[in-house]
């Protein structure tokens, strides 16, 4: 059987286990990464992304569980013997060496010829746009330049696995977009495998084949960018992924006479034909007394009062961004955000009609947060 390149099995990380306040940074992490894949780790600050990378690299011991790379248990090996390259969150360049030497020392142990090392340093410097600072020392270059030097030190190697901890956080969006493309090309061309930590969803979507969403040390969902958007596994992923975030409303479901009525906590009621939802989904919705409905801003239809649907909302803001309109409106006791791809004419203070198609509705169990259905089909 062909095992994935990297296998994490029930990995736990507890910092200060004997202290009064042990920190459970990672809990029961199961993850498989295939050779040639780029995986993005996404999650709020402090959710355990860096801890996960550091356990794979061997800078932190795993508290429990196992890590296998190329079928070999590595979680007890010294970092030098794991065949992993890493770009650090804090850059960690070696101050007495120039940028060139810093990048080259990653290759020292590979015993390459001088010309070969030079060639590869030049290639990587060109890729990352740092050719002009190769002879400078880390203390005399900017944060963004240090970050790229540190990234270069990780990318220059042909390791079994590349771990990149927020490799482009310090760069401006234009450069980031440029490097994103180049890095992806570099990694894919050489058949490298990479795990990348980022706070930027655009970056994750553009670079990664699959995205792992973490929260509170627990893996929430591990899927392709499209699947994360279309079928979030739970309320956290639903609201975490997507910009602007998904609109959510607490509700209760009621059935009868061929209809399914979803009563929002603040009075409004959504009314759908029963067959817009699969029978199993309907049963689950009726059985969970409390549910949460989620609608992405792009899926909210807005029209002048009386047109789009029976629901009413009061516009509080309307912002034309040049290519799309963001409309904020008071609805069901909270704020609803809608995105229209044309210039909407509604003004603050106006009442508008809104509608959610059953196809665009995400339904979650209010208690556990687990997804029940997406667009009427079982999750």
């Amino acid at each position, binding site marked *: 059987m062909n095992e994935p390149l990297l296998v994490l099995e029930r990995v736990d990380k507890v910092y200060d286990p004997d202290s009064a306040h042990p920190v459970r940074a990672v809990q029961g992490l199961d993850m498989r990464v295939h050779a040639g894949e780029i995986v993005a780790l996404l999650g709020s600050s402090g959710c355990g992304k860096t801890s996960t990378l550091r356990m794979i690299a061997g*800078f932190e011991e795993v508290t429990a569980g196992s890590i296998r790379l190329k079928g070999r248990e590595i979680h007890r090996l010294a*970092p030098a013997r794991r065949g992993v390259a890493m770009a650090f969150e*804090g850059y*960690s360049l*070696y101050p007495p060496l120039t940028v060139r030497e810093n990048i080259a*020392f990653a290759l020292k*142990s590979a015993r390459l010829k001088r010309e070969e090392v030079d060639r590869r340093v030049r290639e990587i410097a060109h890729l990352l746009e740092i050719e002009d600072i190769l002879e400078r*020392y880390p*203390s005399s270059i900017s944060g963004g330049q240090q970050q790229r030097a540190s990234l270069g030190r990780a990318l220059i190697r042909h390791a079994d696995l590349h771990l990149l901890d927020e490799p482009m956080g310090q760069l401006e969006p234009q450069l980031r977009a440029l490097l994103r493309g180049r890095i992806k090309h570099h990694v894919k061309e050489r058949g490298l495998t990479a795990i990348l930590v980022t706070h930027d969803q655009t970056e994750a979507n553009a670079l990664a084949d699959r995205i792992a969403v973490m929260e509170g040390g627990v893996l929430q969902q591990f899927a392709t960018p499209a699947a994360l958007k279309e079928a979030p596994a739970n309320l956290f992923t639903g609201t975490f992924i997507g910009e602007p975030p998904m609109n959510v409303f607490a509700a209760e479901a009621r059935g009868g006479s061929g209809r399914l009525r979803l009563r929002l906590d603040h009075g409004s009621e959504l009314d759908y034909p029963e067959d817009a939802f699969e029978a199993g989904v309907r049963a689950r919705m009726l059985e969970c007394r409390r549910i949460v409905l989620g609608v992405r801003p792009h899926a909210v239809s807005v029209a002048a009062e009386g047109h789009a649907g029976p629901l009413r909302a009061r516009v509080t803001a309307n912002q034309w961004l040049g290519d799309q309109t963001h409309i904020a409106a008071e609805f069901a006791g909270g704020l609803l955000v809608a995105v229209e791809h044309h210039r909407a004419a509604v003004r603050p203070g106006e009442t508008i009609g809104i509608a959610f198609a059953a196809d665009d509705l995400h339904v979650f169990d209010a208690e556990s947060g687990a997804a029940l259905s997406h667009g009427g089909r079982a999750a």
Partner: protein
Amino acid sequence: MDHASRLERILRGIAIAAMVLFFMFPIFWILLMSFQTNETILRNPPSMAFAPTLSNYAALLTGRLDTAAGTLDIDFMQNLKNSVILSVFSVAVALLLGVPAAYAFARHKFRGSEDIAFTLLSFRFAPPLLVVLPLALYFQDIGLADTYIGLIWVYQLICLPLILWIVRGYFEDISPDVEYAYRIAGHSWFATFRRIALPLAGPGIAAAGLLAFIFAWNNFVFALVLGSADKQPVTVGALAFVTASGIQYGQIAAAVVLSIAPTLALAIYAQRYLVEGLSLGAVKG
């Protein structure tokens, strides 16, 4: 940079001059004394007018001291040599043992590591006599009394804790990730220690070594109790000038000048090195 007003600068200059004068005066006075005979030194009131003489230095170098009560053989040059041997080897041994230990304490926190480190430091709190008297008895038994090795061993009580604690601080200031970045590229733990940690902590190690050297050089009690005349350093050797016929201030002054010369030279040399090392840039990642 300096936006101080003229007046502020003048006041600051005066304050610094006063401090320098205060601390340098004894050294200056000793230097003057070393070129005088006992008679001119003991003059009352003291005066700076005298005919300089090199007789004190001559006596030290030849090892013959002419006093009112006759000629006395002293072995100051042997004392100076002992000081050098004891200090150099003590610091060398302390660096050899202390630097790796400091690295271990800085990088590997295990249960009780803090306690062990503190226990080592606490050797410095104990009055030296507390340690030295029982040791003197043991050393007699095992034949270490009055040997360089025995003294160097005991000097570790001075040097080792100092080096351990200072160097540990420097190692702790190095971001472990700088080392990890090196290790993950396929380098062993030891190569990382030698090629990354040691050079980065270099200035700290030099400073600690220098301090340890000065403390070892200035030590008095250990050598007084545990060594005989031919193993004693200058600090103890200077006692020879307290003779039956009086204290030989001139020779003591000359001995002091000769004995602070090496430490002073070392300090000046190392200072330049320290500044250089520290200006290499921030170590933290």
